[in-house]
């Protein structure tokens, strides 16, 4: 009888644990990263970019891209199926306006095993770029990009199946200026 009562007492706690585990898993699989901790840097920044486009706005906006126009069709193709694009960027007049601790909140989220760091570029002169992908099977379900520079921090978070090749090729097209970054040479055929 005692063992039965003990078992009955354990049931609610077990249920709570299961619910918490499920919630934690769901959170772990969510490709949306929180960037609100960076807002404290806004007063120090000389230029701030804050873009928040959720699924509803994305669907609404996609109607404004014409399928007949080649450039717009390309953009439409890229954003088709995306559930959100969030960008936060701060540009400072001088170096040392932010510390590693400011970015740690972002990095800690990206240390989640659901995220895979696919690119990590570090340069003292030009800064570093970290690209993370969240995959659901073979399909990309989210992208996170953290670009740091002595005078700049940029966080890009794209939710949904993003085509990296098409997104990379977008620079220099459709009024998007080329930012002086060379594009990769096409592969040579053997």
């Amino acid at each position, binding site marked *: 009888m005692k063992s039965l009562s003990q078992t009955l007492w354990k049931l609610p706690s077990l249920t709570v644990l299961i619910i918490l585990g499920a919630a934690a898993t769901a959170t772990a699989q969510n490709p949306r990263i929180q960037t609100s901790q960076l807002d404290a840097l806004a007063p120090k920044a000389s230029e701030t*970019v804050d*873009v928040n*486009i959720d699924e509803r*706005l*994305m669907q*609404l*906006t996609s*109607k*404004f*891209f014409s399928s007949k126009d080649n450039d717009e069709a390309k*953009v439409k193709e*890229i*954003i088709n199926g995306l559930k959100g*694009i*969030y*960008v936060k*960027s701060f540009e400072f007049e001088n170096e040392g306006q932010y510390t590693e601790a400011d970015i740690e909140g972002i990095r800690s989220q990206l240390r989640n095993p659901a995220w895979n760091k696919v*690119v990590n*570029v570090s*340069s003292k002169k*030009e800064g570093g*770029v970290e*690209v993370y992908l969240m995959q659901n099977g073979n399909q990309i379900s989210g*992208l996170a*990009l953290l*670009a740091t520079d002595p005078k700049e921090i*940029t966080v*890009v978070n*794209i939710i949904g199946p993003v085509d*990296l090749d098409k*997104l*990379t*090729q*977008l*620079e220099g097209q*459709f*009024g*998007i*200026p080329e*930012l002086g*970054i*060379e*594009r*990769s*040479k096409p*592969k040579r055929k053997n």
Partner: protein
Amino acid sequence: MNIDGDYLWDKTGEPDPEIQELEEILGTLRYQPRPLKIPADLQTNPTRGFFSTLVPRLAIAATLAMALLGLGLWLGLQHSQQPRAPVVAKTPIAPASGKNPGSRELPTPDQGAKDTDVATFGGPEQKQKHLSRRHSASSSLAANINRSPHIREGLIRQRQVAVQELREAEAAKDELMLALRMASAKLNFAQKKTQNINPREPVHNQHKIG
């Protein structure tokens, strides 16, 4: 079984024993005239109960009520639908079309009406008749709308929401392009850097053999 003779047809000729046997078996089921026996306890004129008389009347009343309700709804629907088209044309609220590039794609109601006129009415007389009819209808409906401010307010609100959504989407389009530009630039930068670290053609100083 013998089926050559006329026995089966008119009972003449040689009878077949099998058929005779079947006749005997089935003969018991033959129609036998009997006088109608009415049970003594059967009430030919029963006294009707309260509910038994009320139910049919209630059913008739309910049917009539439903028919009247349906008619009322139909008339109400007709009445509410009529003023809508001219109201949109008359509503003074319109987006700042000059400043809004996205609104260029959406024709104004007046433009739409002009297009329809040109497409539908070939002759000038027909067009004139239609215009005069439409003018009288719109003026009477405008008067109706003036009398019913609820409809007007609802339509104005709808229009305002549509315009707001349009502006929101236009602003979001610019933001989206900015976001894509930044993402693309950073990805290109990362791609360039990784290619510099791992060049595709690492050996340049080899000589051809042969």
